């Protein structure tokens, strides 16, 4: 099986009476070169899925494979395979070391390629990547504080690309940004996906953005997938009640909100 595949992924935090199952028997296959949306509200476990895929969290059960190779665990093979999955974080303000020039941060990303880079090679690569995300390569020596939120998010994308990934996981990458900047980052991601033939796992709480960005989608609730399928099908004709509730809750431009008689939860 190729692509990024999660099967029966389970992640628990804590132990004893305080244990909490964040992800519970999660199933997902992202086909190569496509983008898959992962939708859910806070606490649904979608960010934990991302953390498990890049090795920040050790699953309690289940497996994650990339093009058939196991990417979970501490073995050298798993580590190597895992480097081809890169993560872009939600908050561009904490994703860059405030005391490290952005060029060095990006250069650090080239580590994941596990090739030897000479200094000039590395410099050229950083310039190329900055160019790619539409940031002036001359500014590689500046600190993150010199950049705005949208620019920083593009820099973190460049850092992820430096690893030459085949899968890019975007974890709520626009939710900390102003709407006008959001479009720039989304367009960039689409452009990169097309040009680099990336496989993208796009995590978001925003159904409209997922609808625009993704070929297929999974809806998560309480650590489980409640509905999955092609975006057009799932969002146009949702079968699951929770998906329907989510869809009904999204404000639509220029459409008066209506209030039926649903009971507000706790």
């Amino acid at each position, binding site marked *: 099986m190729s692509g990024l595949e999660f099967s029966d992924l389970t*992640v628990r*935090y*804590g*132990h*004893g*009476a*305080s244990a*909490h199952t*964040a992800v519970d028997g999660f199933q997902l296959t992202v086909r190569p070169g496509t983008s898959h949306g992962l939708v*859910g*509200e*806070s*606490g*649904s*476990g*979608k*960010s*934990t899925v991302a*953390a498990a895929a890049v090795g*920040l*969290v*050790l699953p309690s059960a289940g497996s994650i494979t990339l093009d058939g190779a196991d990417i979970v665990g501490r073995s050298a093979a798993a580590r190597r395979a895992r480097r081809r999955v890169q993560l872009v974080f*939600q908050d561009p303000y904490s994703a860059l070391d405030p005391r490290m020039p952005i060029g060095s941060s990006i250069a650090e990303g080239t580590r994941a390629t596990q090739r030897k880079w000479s200094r000039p090679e590395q410099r050229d690569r950083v310039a190329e990547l900055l160019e790619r995300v539409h940031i002036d390569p001359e500014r590689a020596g500046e600190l993150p504080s010199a950049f705005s939120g949208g620019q920083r998010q593009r820099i973190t994308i460049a850092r992820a690309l430096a690893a030459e990934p085949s899968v890019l996981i975007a*974890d*709520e990458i626009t*939710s*900390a940004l102003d709407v006008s900047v959001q479009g720039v980052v989304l367009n960039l991601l689409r452009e990169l996906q097309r040009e680099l033939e990336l496989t993208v796992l796009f*995590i*978001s*709480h925003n159904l409209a953005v997922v609808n625009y960005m993704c070929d297929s989608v999974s809806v998560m609730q309480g650590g489980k997938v409640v509905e999955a399928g092609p975006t057009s099908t799932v969002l146009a004709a949702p079968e699951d009640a929770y998906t329907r509730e989510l869809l009904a809750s999204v404000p639509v431009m220029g459409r008066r909100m209506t209030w039926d008689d649903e009971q507000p939860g706790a």
Partner: protein
Amino acid sequence: MAIPSIASTDPAAGPGGPAVARRGDRGLLGGLSPRSSFILRRLGRLLVSLVIVVIATFLIVQLVPGDPVRAALGNSATPELVERTRADLGLDVPVPEQFVNYVSGLLRGDMGTAIGSQRSVSDTIAQRFPITLTLAVAAFLVAALGAFPIGVATAVSSRTGRHRLADLGISGLLGVLIAIPSLLFAVGLIAVFSIGLGVLPAAGWGSFQQAVLPVIALAVGPMAYLARLVHVEMLSVLEMPYMTTARSKRLPTHLVYLRHALPNMVTSTLTIGGIMLTGMVAGTVLIETVFAIPGLGTSIVSSITSKDYPMIQGVVLVYAMLVLGLNLLIDVALATIDPRSSITEG
């Protein structure tokens, strides 16, 4: 090798989610209410601390380089005297047995006999301890009662920015008072009130007049420190959204500050206040020495100088237990006052 942060990462934190963090794991005490689990944890810590203190004081004699008995008696003492004293002190038996004897002695309230005075250590301590406790508690009350009004008033005033010069002056004065060690303050007080004006005695203990200068000397530095802490805490509380909510209700000013601001700074100031209170307990050592007060402080200094180890062990133990007792008091106060006290602890 896992980096620890992951354990503390909030599993429930969602995208752009609320800043509300689900608090970390409760470990074995997960089933209890937060408050009782907080108190239980603190009691456990107290117990462990006690054990550490007892072991540490026991080890004093063992860790001293060379022969402690010879060191205590001096080079002129005869070998017979040294051996007899060693037997008196119970140091002629194997170390484990010494420890058992030490602990069982403590349980009976027997801390041995001082080498110098040949008096029971417990008796000396029983006589001197109340003096030290009175001094520390009086100083703490003065510090706390002075610090809160000053800190709150300067914070409110500096926020409205109406009296900038006065604010700068007071904050400068507090800075200077913090920098002056109690020892020095004591000297200054003696110079002015005992020597210069001749209105208050510079030494001794027993009367109210004799207590004034030592208490002030011990209280002023911590008071200034606490006042500045209250000031900073108050300023940060005043910036919180819930204070805007309170102001939006157009409540009378005193309600805004007393009901809405003050309770939110109690936890932090009480925590720091507790640390300062224990610091004051230690500070009595210096102040008692300056003012020649017959408390535990003077006896620890003289016993360290004369290498009177049973006395040192006893006094250090009592000081440490006093500190632990005060910590427990503070913890109980925290658990009673703050509805969330148990949660704020990682």
